[in-house]
């Protein structure tokens, strides 16, 4: 059974990687399992300078999911290159940096700075963070802005660029086409869906930022639908799929919808061993449903007419 998949800049031994923001920079989870088992690792967002994020509470539990409004807290791109990425270079696992910014200039600066690191294989361009006041989500909801930032980051970066799409749009294929036209090497989808939870006793939103991004199994059907639509519109673009993956069956569902690889986010919090357990179960699930490799399953969930 071959689990290997190849995407631009990424020769993956299996299609499963932790999602950005749900795995830090790998150190903590390396205490639970050998990071060599992972297909790749997507690290926490990098911005131009260190950011300390939003006030707390930053998370809330929902039915089948969670809300978060971390606010892109991270040590800044220079510290990430100096202090965080070298640790990951000891593993035989490709590392994908996630970049964020408030302005096109900040995105470009982070992308240029990351060229200095020898520890990366690709970058994920986060134009979809719903939790920061400036930038973030508006780049992910306006096709012209998305095009501009993708084009400029693509020009600035030595790495393949996967653009991470926001689900908080009416038409996901418009956004996907815009960033692919601008030169995106691949897509990563989906980021979180904006939501809110109100505390009955306190008569106020639980999250200090009021709104947060919904993740976990609650959003899986939205992710599957969006990947399916984008795959129909763009048959060749590499897609890293994510949103609510908890099991190897979920991975197969994403592959069938058209994802070439997948990322696991919130599940890591519930089970630090989520990624290696899913990877271990994947061959059995693929053969149970009649596939001999991961590659064979990609896009096979589409019906015509």
């Amino acid at each position: 059974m071959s689990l290997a998949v190849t995407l631009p800049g990424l020769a993956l031994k299996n299609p499963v990687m932790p999602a950005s923001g749900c795995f830090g920079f790998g150190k903590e989870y390396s205490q639970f399992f050998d990071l060599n088992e992972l297909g790749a690792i997507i690290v926490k967002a990098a911005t131009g300078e260190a950011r300390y994020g939003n006030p707390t509470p930053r998370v809330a539990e929902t039915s089948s999911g969670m809300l978060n409004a971390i606010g892109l807290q991270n040590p800044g791109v220079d510290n990430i290159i100096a202090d965080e990425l070298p640790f990951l270079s000891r593993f035989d696992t490709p590392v994908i940096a996630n970049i964020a910014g408030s302005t096109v200039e900040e995105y470009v600066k982070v992308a240029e700075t990351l060229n200095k690191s020898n520890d990366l294989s690709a970058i994920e361009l986060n134009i979809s963070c719903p939790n920061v006041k400036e930038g973030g989500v508006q780049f992910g909801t306006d096709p012209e802005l998305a095009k501009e930032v993708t084009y400029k980051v693509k020009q600035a970066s030595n790495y393949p660029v996967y653009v991470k799409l926001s689900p908080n749009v009416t038409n996901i294929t418009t956004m996907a086409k815009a960033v692919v036209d601008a030169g995106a090497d691949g897509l990563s989808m989906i980021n979180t869906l904006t939501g809110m939870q109100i505390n009955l006793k306190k008569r106020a939103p639980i999250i200090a930022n009021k709104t947060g991004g919904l993740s976990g199994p609650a959003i899986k059907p939205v992710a599957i639908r969006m990947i399916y639509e984008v795959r129909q519109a763009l048959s060749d673009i590499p897609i890293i799929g994510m949103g609510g993956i908890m099991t190897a069956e979920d991975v197969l569902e994403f592959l069938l919808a058209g994802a070439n690889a997948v990322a696991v986010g919130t599940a890591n919090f519930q089970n630090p061993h989520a990624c290696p357990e899913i990877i271990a179960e994947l061959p059995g699930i693929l053969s149970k449903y009649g596939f001999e490799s991961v590659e064979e399953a990609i896009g096979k969930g589409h019906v015509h007419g």
Partner: protein
Amino acid sequence: MITKQSLEINSHIQIAEDTFEVVLQSSLSKELKPGQFVHIQLPGHMLRRPVSIANVNPEAETFTMIFKIFGEGTRNLSKYQAGEFLDVILPCGTHYPIEDLSLEHALLVGGGIGVPPLYYLGTKLKEKGVKVTSVLGFQSASHVFYEEKFQQLGETFIATNDGTYGQKGFVTDIISKLDKPIDYYFSCGPTPMLQAVTSQLADQKGYISLEERMGCGVGTCYACVVPLKADPSKNKKICKDGPVFPANEVNLA
């Protein structure tokens, strides 16, 4: 080293209103230090629940936790029975660094579900020959637990909000009447209590243990931060840099 274990419940008993004491069997018990917590998975819940370590029995390889029903997760936890298993990440966070401190007299100040970690701390202080005075606050008489156990560690004062037991009022009302010199205080409880205690004892050295809603509980998600006093635009993670902090390091406001 932090791990995930499936732990058998040795005993699970109610010790006060809505309050339960659970003893778990774990090979890691003897490594658990006062102030650390465990992160518990409950079926049907996306996120784990953090609960402090309230005592350790190294010979039996067990540890104790005490929790109060607060919402659905802790209600679910209250229904477990001896012989069942819990999925637990442990040990999490920092501990009260008593091995590095020279002290003769310690003051423990606990409120509600902040009382449990102080019991384990108190036993360790007593082992070191430190004199322990405890001031514990509860909602009302029916919520009081572990009074006798704290009395075995040293002088113990109880305050209840409604005056149904001990002194009516807050822990700070009792502290203001204590005139004995202390070297360090150690406090855990709701944030308003910690604010009152840290400002009342501003000229004393102390350590406090904080609570915040958590995601991962291991330091990867940045959910659980607390601003720093020196520069409130910066912060630290409660689950990994804490939950125990020097009292003057963090900004509770």
